[in-house]
């Protein structure tokens, strides 16, 4: 009975994190963008700096009518938001935030593979939405999503493989247990490749060609309204949390930090994740959107060779150490 309680408690905590942290990232995006672009944004809801605007947006989304276009494929159309969102919940289960068994939802033996595999499934949601909407802009968005995923999945995997080689394990807590500070300069190229490819997989600017609002309205999500649309947005923010958490765990040493080794490791994890999330938002307001051919070129001619070079470097150093 104790086991069941333990599992239930862990899942409950992961679910609470999943519901809460993406919203914090969303709120941070509102405020950080507003400050960087020198505009106020909504300032009234809730009083202080409009902190309740996000909740108000949520209420607005719930109230809106849930419309399915007449020509659409109803069931696929309605299922798509769930397919886009749920994988990120599953991924969160496997990300360790502190040392020891207590600070991870579930230790997964092949952690890296689990995380990357399940994240890849999330894109199916966008593809389903793009096809089932019976809208040419949605279809174009779906096509671009698929092309982008095919291009950026490979460098992401290769970069992650480099860390796995360095640590000699594919389990996420195992990698962190093996982490040394000098891995940071050693794996820095892999870290950059992983982060950039992850951004592209999430379709965040500057890689937001699939939802380019000035060209194809909102890509695969054009026909969505109300709660289902909000779920897609939530999936995007959950994706940011997962990507930043993963980059932290794989490349930045997770709970390792210069001080506070006992008991405070989780603070380091959260801090690094938060800084990365800030960078994600920062990139959104500072870079223009990449064109489709530039996107593909970046993936195939820059990121993949860099990732392969990183793997070669990892192999050489690993052999030299041994």
């Amino acid at each position: 009975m104790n086991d069941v309680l333990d599992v239930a408690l862990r899942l409950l905590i992961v679910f609470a994190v999943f519901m809460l942290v993406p919203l914090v990232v969303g709120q941070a995006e509102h405020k950080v963008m507003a400050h960087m672009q020198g505009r106020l944004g909504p300032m009234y809801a809730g009083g202080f700096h409009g902190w309740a605007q996000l909740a108000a947006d949520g209420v607005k989304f719930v109230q809106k009518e849930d419309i399915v276009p007449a020509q659409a494929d109803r069931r696929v159309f309605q299922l798509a938001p769930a397919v886009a969102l749920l994988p990120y919940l599953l991924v969160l289960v496997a990300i360790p935030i502190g040392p020891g068994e207590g600070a991870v939802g579930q230790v997964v033996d092949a952690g890296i593979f689990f995380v990357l595999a399940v994240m890849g499934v999330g894109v199916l949601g966008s593809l389903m939405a793009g096809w089932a909407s019976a809208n040419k802009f949605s279809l174009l968005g779906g096509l671009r999503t698929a092309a982008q995923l095919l291009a950026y999945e490979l460098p992401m995997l290769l970069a992650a493989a480099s860390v796995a080689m360095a640590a000699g394990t594919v389990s996420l807590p195992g990698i962190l247990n093996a982490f040394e500070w000098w891995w940071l300069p050693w794996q820095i190229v892999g870290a950059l490749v992983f982060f950039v490819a992850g951004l592209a997989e999430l379709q965040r600017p500057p890689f937001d060609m699939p939802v380019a609002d000035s060209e194809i309205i909102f890509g695969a999500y054009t026909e969505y309204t109300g709660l289902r649309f909000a779920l897609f947005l939530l999936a995007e923010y959950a994706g940011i949390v997962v990507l930043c958490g993963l980059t932290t765990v794989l490349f930045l040493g997770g709970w390792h930090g210069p001080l506070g080794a006992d008991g405070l490791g989780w603070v380091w994890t959260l801090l690094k994740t938060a800084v990365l999330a800030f960078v994600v938002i920062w990139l959104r307001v500072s870079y223009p959107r990449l064109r489709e051919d530039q996107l593909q070129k970046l993936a195939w001619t820059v990121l993949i060779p860099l990732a392969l070079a990183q793997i070669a470097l990892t192999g050489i150093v690993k052999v030299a150490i041994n």
Partner: protein
Amino acid sequence: MTLAAAAAHPGFLSPTGVEIAFLLVGLATFGAAVITVTTKQLVHAALWLVVALGGIAVEYLLLTAEFIAWVQVLIYVGSVVVLLLFGLMLTKAPIGRSPDADSGNRWVAAAVAVTAATALVWVVVDAFRTTWIDLEGPAQGSTDATGEFLFRHWVLPFEALSVLLLAALIGAIVLSRKDRAGTSHREDKR
């Protein structure tokens, strides 16, 4: 994967929860696979294929082969099906029934499928007739064990496979370059 034969043979008549789950997931996978080949809606076929491939991943998990299960999801659900959907979207697969989704080869295809399935089932049953997975001991399908098997006992087949894939890759490049040099103006954005 060799599975240590447990000292005392469990019987077929008192199935454990894992075995029942294995059977049920197997049935669901089989159902999804049948729908995949019989549905008249092209994109639905691809989506049911996701269910079938995911079901197989769950079966791997139940057989303790965790690493294989995640690779199955990564490669098949995450990449192959996405590629498939990409191709289908390029053909503007219609919503609703595609009248030309049927092929005249259906009986030949069915015969080939049944033959292949019989051969595979026969081989698997013959190889693992009375072996049982020891669930109490260390995980036998862990990444560690899989890697050791792959690179200690099966290196040659593994390398042969990678050469085969390399050949396919080069072949694909050659085929797609031919188009560009020729007269046809096909847009290949990949």
